[in-house]
């Protein structure tokens, strides 16, 4: 099976059998019996300082093995973001967290930990710890945190609470605005904090072995985690070993190092005894990461024909108590704004990332673009409505076109399917008919259709040079073992990596086995699952390694057969001559390579591919909804996503991944929101009060693709993992605008907000 047949084929997932039979082992499933259990004591204030902490009662409890507090841990500040390390200190992530923190920066901050023989004992011990705080008023919003008298959360890092700011401008904004006859709109668009809600909670266990600290963890980024655990504990990185088994979803939350350094430290303090640290769902909500709430003050100037003349946009990103991915997210959002639409005359953007006393914002599926897309595509419909234009027409007039090159990053549009995606979505959604049909409605139930478009960068270059390694090892039976540092996190990575390996080597798909678990002592280096990079970046490493392996196979065969390696081909399980005549099977070749009587060579290939390239993926969403005005409810009737992700490696898995993104986008649009009380405590940090859509809240999900061939992708492919979650919320918001004439500028579009707005507008 060569490249032609296996790329683009919907082979079943290679991990599906394990996952439907219960054979798949996730982190907690692997923890040895008898492991000690750790529990964390979290602060009960959002802003302040731990003055005193009394652990005597806890430490005296039978079954308690260890109690540590914020006053015991090493004074090492470390970064947690799952970015590749930068050798330039200016580009390193902000190191603002300690294993346990006496300076409390959010409600739930980690201030002490207990290790005990079982969870009940550990929990009782946590409850027995007495804490005395010095309490400060919490800054729960960007406005509060930026106030002149606000107390800085991290004075050693930034004197105010502005972690970072940057601006960008092109053209002469003042001159552009002065053009007569322009429509000027100013809107403030707000997005809310939401969470990933991977169903497997954050979990790890740690033990000492071979002079190393081993952490088995549910992570997207084992090799990055090794570095961060080393940094946090002040250990040489080679003394840290991370093992990543099957993973119950990530979506970016596990592109951060969570409790693994603390877990490693607790085991270390207990001379390497095995310690299990399972976060409860409530802890996952309150204390891991979330998608940044970003507010956009958005000015746009357009001509009556819809031409976007100029924009002036300021964005404020609510960071929470610790930097995590920090400014990278809102920076990505503002870059998106200039990529998806181009202004004829001028653009100015400004962005701030601001520390607040709330849970830390980090990476979440789309990395700033769901927020940016909400702002950009709300404005497009607001302009269209004000100018009496069709929403598609105004987009087509202003959106990215082939040949575009981002003026800042230099990323070029190397393949372009955006216009075709829109065309396809327009047909599938019956856009033209429904726009007319729903134009004039009255009564309590109204329908609408809306759409939104996006572009998405596949990897992270030129922020950092992308790098990935791949190793292929020939087995004794002529099959192949594939080792990667890239991670399967549920997206189907293992399956498409095998498809790529089959295409790259010519060895049948069924004859290649993947080592799904990453063990940083064994797995080749790869920074892991984030951005939408693995099929792109790791794919290049697979392709390169496959070529190397073929050369080695042919060289060995040529030596054995006494022929010219350049004349050999691989066909199925046979090495054949240029004329196609079978010469030797791979199985026989392998037997000889391992067990030959006069010569032996263990045939392996390993290569690093660095990727100094990037490319734009595209897509759109069309959403049809029904609004029940008196009850403030939006019922999505149909959600259609059309994506240009280049060549699809596995169309069935690609479609499945889009479904998941659509569902996540629906939650973002309609119901999900992390709510904090006036003290900074998360009110709804559980799966009952946080409204993740159930099957009954989900409409039929419809997916289509426009397959372009991207010249920079290893197999013509580009980003797919994150994009599906991006355009759904603005599409639904615009459908609501169509149905009711009410422009809602704040997410989520939940009933309480809608009823208030409908009442204000006299609709009910």
């Amino acid at each position, binding site marked *: 099976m060569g490249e032609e047949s296996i790329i683009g084929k919907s082979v079943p997932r290679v991990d599906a059998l394990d996952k*439907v039979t219960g054979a798949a082992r996730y982190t907690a499933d692997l923890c040895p019996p008898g492991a000690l259990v750790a529990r964390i004591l979290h602060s009960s204030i959002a802003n302040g300082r731990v003055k005193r902490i009394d652990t005597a009662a806890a430490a005296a409890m039978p079954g308690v093995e260890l109690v540590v507090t914020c006053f015991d841990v090493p004074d090492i500040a470390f970064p947690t973001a799952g970015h590749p390390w930068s050798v330039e200190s200016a580009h390193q992530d902000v190191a603002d967290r300690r294993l346990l923190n006496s300076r409390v920066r959010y409600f739930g901050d980690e201030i002490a930990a207990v290790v005990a023989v079982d969870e009940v004992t550990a929990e009782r011990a946590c409850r027995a710890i007495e804490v005395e705080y010095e309490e400060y008023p919490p800054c729960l919003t960007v406005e509060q945190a930026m106030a002149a008298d606000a107390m800085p959360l991290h004075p050693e890092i930034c004197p105010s609470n502005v972690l970072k700011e940057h601006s960008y401008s092109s053209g002469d904004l003042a001159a552009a605005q002065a053009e007569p006859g322009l429509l000027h709109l100013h809107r403030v668009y707000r997005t809310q904090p939401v969470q990933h809600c991977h*169903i497997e909670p954050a979990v790890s266990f740690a033990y000492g072995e071979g002079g190393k600290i081993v952490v088995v963890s549910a992570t997207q980024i084992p090799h990055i985690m090794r570095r961060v655990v080393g940094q946090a504990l002040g250990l040489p990185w080679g003394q840290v070993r991370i093992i990543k088994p099957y993973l119950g979803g990530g979506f970016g939350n596990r592109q951060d190092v969570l409790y693994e350094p603390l877990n490693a430290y607790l085991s270390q303090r207990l001379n390497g005894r095995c310690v299990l640290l399972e976060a409860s*769902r409530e802890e996952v909500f309150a204390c891991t990461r979330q998608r940044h709430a970003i507010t956009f003050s958005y000015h746009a100037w357009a001509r009556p024909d819809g031409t976007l003349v100029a924009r002036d946009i300021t964005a404020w990103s609510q960071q929470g108590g610790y930097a995590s991915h920090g400014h990278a997210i809102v920076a990505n959002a503002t870059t998106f704004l200039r990529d998806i639409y181009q202004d004829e005359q001028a653009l100015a953007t400004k962005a701030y990332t601001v520390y607040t006393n709330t849970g830390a914002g980090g990476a979440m599926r789309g990395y700033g673009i769901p927020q940016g897309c909400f702002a950009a595509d709300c404005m497009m419909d607001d302009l269209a409505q004000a100018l009496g234009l069709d929403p598609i027409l105004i987009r087509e007039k202003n959106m990215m076109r082939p040949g575009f090159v981002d003026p800042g990053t230099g990323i070029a549009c190397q393949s372009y399917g955006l216009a075709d995606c829109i065309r396809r979505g327009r047909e599938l959604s019956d856009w033209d008919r429904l726009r007319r049909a729903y134009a004039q409605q009255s009564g309590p139930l109204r329908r609408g259709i809306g759409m939104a478009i996006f572009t998405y960068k596949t990897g992270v270059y030129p922020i950092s040079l992308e790098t990935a390694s791949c190793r292929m090892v020939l087995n004794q039976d002529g099959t192949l073992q594939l080792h990667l540092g890239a991670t399967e996190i549920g997206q189907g990575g293992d399956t498409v990596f095998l498809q790529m390996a089959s295409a790259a080597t010519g060895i049948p798909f069924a004859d290649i086995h993947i080592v799904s678990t990453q063990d940083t002592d064994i797995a080749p280096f790869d920074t892991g699952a984030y951005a939408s990079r693995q099929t792109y970046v790791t794919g290049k490493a697979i392709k390169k390694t496959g070529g190397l392996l073929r050369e080695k196979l042919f060289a060995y065969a040529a030596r054995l057969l006494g022929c010219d390696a350049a004349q050999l081909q691989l066909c199925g399980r046979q090495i054949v001559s240029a004329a196609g005549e079978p010469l030797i099977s791979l199985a026989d070749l392998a037997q000889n390579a391992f067990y030959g009587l006069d010569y032996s060579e263990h045939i392996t290939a390993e290569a690093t591919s660095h990727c100094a390239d990037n490319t734009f993926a595209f897509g759109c969403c069309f959403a049809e909804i029904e609004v029940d005005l008196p009850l403030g409810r939006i019922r999505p009737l149909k959600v259609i996503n059309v994506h240009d992700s280049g060549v699809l490696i596995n169309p069935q898995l690609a479609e499945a991944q889009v*479904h998941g993104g659509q569902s996540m986008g629906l939650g973002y649009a309609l119901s999900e929101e992390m709510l904090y009380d006036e003290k900074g405590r998360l009110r709804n940090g559980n*799966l009952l009060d946080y409204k993740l859509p159930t099957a*009954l809240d989900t409409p039929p999900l419809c997916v289509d693709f426009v397959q372009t061939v991207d010249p920079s992708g290893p197999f013509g492919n580009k980003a797919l993992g994150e994009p599906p979650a991006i355009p759904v919320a603005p599409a639904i918001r615009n459908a609501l605008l169509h149905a009711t004439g009410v422009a809602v500028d704040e997410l989520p579009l939940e009933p309480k907000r809608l009823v208030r707005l409908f009442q204000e507008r006299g609709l009910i």
Partner: protein
Amino acid sequence: MLQIIHLTVNGRAQELAVDIRASLADVLRRQLGLTSVKKGCEVGECGACTVLIDGRAVDSCLYLAVWADGREILTVEGLRAGDGSLHPVQRAFIEKAAVQCGFCTPGIIMSAVEIVGAGRRYTREELRRELSGHLCRCTGYENILDAVQQAVEQTLQQASS
């Protein structure tokens, strides 16, 4: 404190000394190694720990192990036939790409096994209702619904032929 209970798990009679504080999920996972029973919330909100108790889908995280005395428990580990062949639901989940991260999968499969065992047809909306006690973040439920529908149809066809 321990109590002795007698129960049948995946067709096999068991006598177990269980901690009175343990949930059924705890005992299945830790004492019997049935780690398909996942813990996603521990309060009956996500459905990842769903098993069949006397044929009914139940959240095993909210079910005390001592209550399982005298009952029959089925988990995903008990679905495969002796010859290794898969249950129609398991097959359908693979064929329809209803599996992604796989963490919610065993629980949903158990609800689906009960649905398929009912021996009747379901509308898509009814299936949504029957599966609404499970949260999945990867699939948007679309392929899961397809898989369950396929398993229902195949099982009905086999029964009638």
